[in-house]
């Protein structure tokens, strides 16, 4: 439950931003409203970066558990690394549930 707080903050940011845009006549306030929405969206993207209790995706069956068997192509390597980072997987062997 407490893990969902950032999403609540996202909704509050965007809601306040849209309220400001709709009901304020001051141009500075309108610009601030746009910035509020922007912050909300950015916070949303950052919050998505962490998934609790999720496993690494197994793009190449068998290669992950071997510990060293990354694919040859360098671009797919970097993709796998970023993919694991997104799922918060600090270890090449497996993921920690408690983080």
């Amino acid at each position: 439950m407490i893990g969902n707080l950032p999403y609540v903050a996202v909704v509050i940011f965007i809601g306040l931003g849209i309220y400001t845009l709709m009901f304020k006549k001051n141009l500075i306030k309108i610009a601030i409203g746009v910035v509020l929405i922007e912050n909300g969206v950015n916070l949303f993207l950052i919050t998505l970066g962490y998934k609790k209790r999720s496993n690494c995706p197994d793009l190449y069956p068998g290669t992950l558990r071997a510990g060293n068997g990354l694919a040859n192509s360098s671009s797919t390597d970097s993709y796998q690394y970023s993919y694991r980072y997104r799922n918060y997987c600090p270890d090449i062997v497996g993921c920690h549930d408690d983080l």
Partner: protein
Amino acid sequence: MNLSNHIPILIIAIPLLAAFLVPLIGRINKKATGILTTLALSVSLVLTIVLAVKILSVGPQVYVFGATSPSLTLPSGLKFPIRIMFQIDAMGIFMGLITAVVSFVGAIYSLVFMKQHSGLDKYYSLLLLLTVGVFGMEFTGDIFNFFVFLEIASIASVALISFRGIDLGEPAEAGFKYMVVSSISALMVLFAVGIFYGQYDILNFAGIASVIKYSQLDKIALGLLIPVLAMKAGAVPMHMWTPDAYSEAPAPITMMLVAASQASLYALFRVVFSLYNISLNALTVGWIIIIFGLLSMFIGVTMAIIQKDIKRLMAYHAVSQTGYMFLGVGVGLAVLANPIALNQYGITAMEGGIFHIMNHAMYKGLLFLTAGALFFRTGTKNLDKMGGLAHSMKYTTIFFIIGAAAIAGLPPFNGFASKLLIYESVYRFNPLLSIIAMVVSILTLASFVKVFHSAFLGPKLPQFKEVKEVPRSMVFAMAVLSCIIIFFGLFPDLIVKNLVHPAVMSLIEQFKYTGTVLGGM
């Protein structure tokens, strides 16, 4: 290296390179900036036509960035695409052709029209960037990449709308409005991208389309995307920026803005048809789009009739004509889940709506250029102050008549062809919608008769004694658009069969779109 495989990226790369060369060239020779821009855009136009021929004869083209081969969508046996790619099908190249023609004509028109302004290197640089952004929105096969190109197009257009000078007040106001509108829509698109990425871990259109489940979150994403893209396209409840932006921008830029709005419209259709297709509740979403269309048509035209400013009047007509596209495609979407109705009239309705996009870009571009020509010679946009200009501006008068007849849907011109398709097919869906569309068309004619009467007819006014025809390059730009309008009006079957029908089918048949990238066709 086979260059023909790299055409999709060259269409974008050449104007992009020119955009950054123009300020450098401008340091040496001011005149060369316009010529360089025209050259770059003419190369783009030729490449787009070559690509169109290839796509319509061979099939959809994919261009994958950074891959060993441009057509390698799934490297090393991956199950879904991970690289940024351009995915150009018949619909994408249909929009690409519009952008290529409009930007090329706009650049030619600008050569003389913008001559007396300072800062032309910046003007041409932004014009090229706007073209790049619009091309990118239409060609990309990656939803995050779409957001990036949307931002490029928005930022360039904001600067161009207020180009006439921030001291004047009105251009600055129009620019600010457009900036707020486009930043909100870009942020909401980014939010929707986040929702898709959080659920499916893919950013590719085709990749998302193959796994989309229409969950609660997908509904939220659709609810974010439809209104903001309709807002960028200028549909009615969110149309407040169109009259300001269209009337304050220089005439060639207004023409480009119409093309940029239509790129957002294209993105809306792409999201609804290629991303969701029948997984969404087609009848409900279809009716939502139809209602956007009805409101745009009716409110747009009624607001247009009372305008005194010629460009503002035309801007409201742009809103009204966008309604026809929403109506035609909305009817197609509403019957998407019903194959019998889709074959009977749904496809025809969509053909009308999609064909109208191209027709609208041509005749509305022509009308904005004639308004620009009047402003160029008389220095006013107020219809009450004009009069008797047909005596001294003969070519402009003829071009205006062609544009006005096309927008009102009179027979030998292209507006008639697409409107007739819409009337016939929409009548079978719901007669009332078709009747409203016809009434709006009559009101359109009425308001253009008013413009024609007050600007061109009457005795020669003493204050316009010195007025003469606009320079040759502006006449040429308008003549190109007029020829296209007449050609489309005389041979609509040719265009509908070869260009519009494949575009409509590539929207309806989702598996073809996803199959191009994911294989399994």
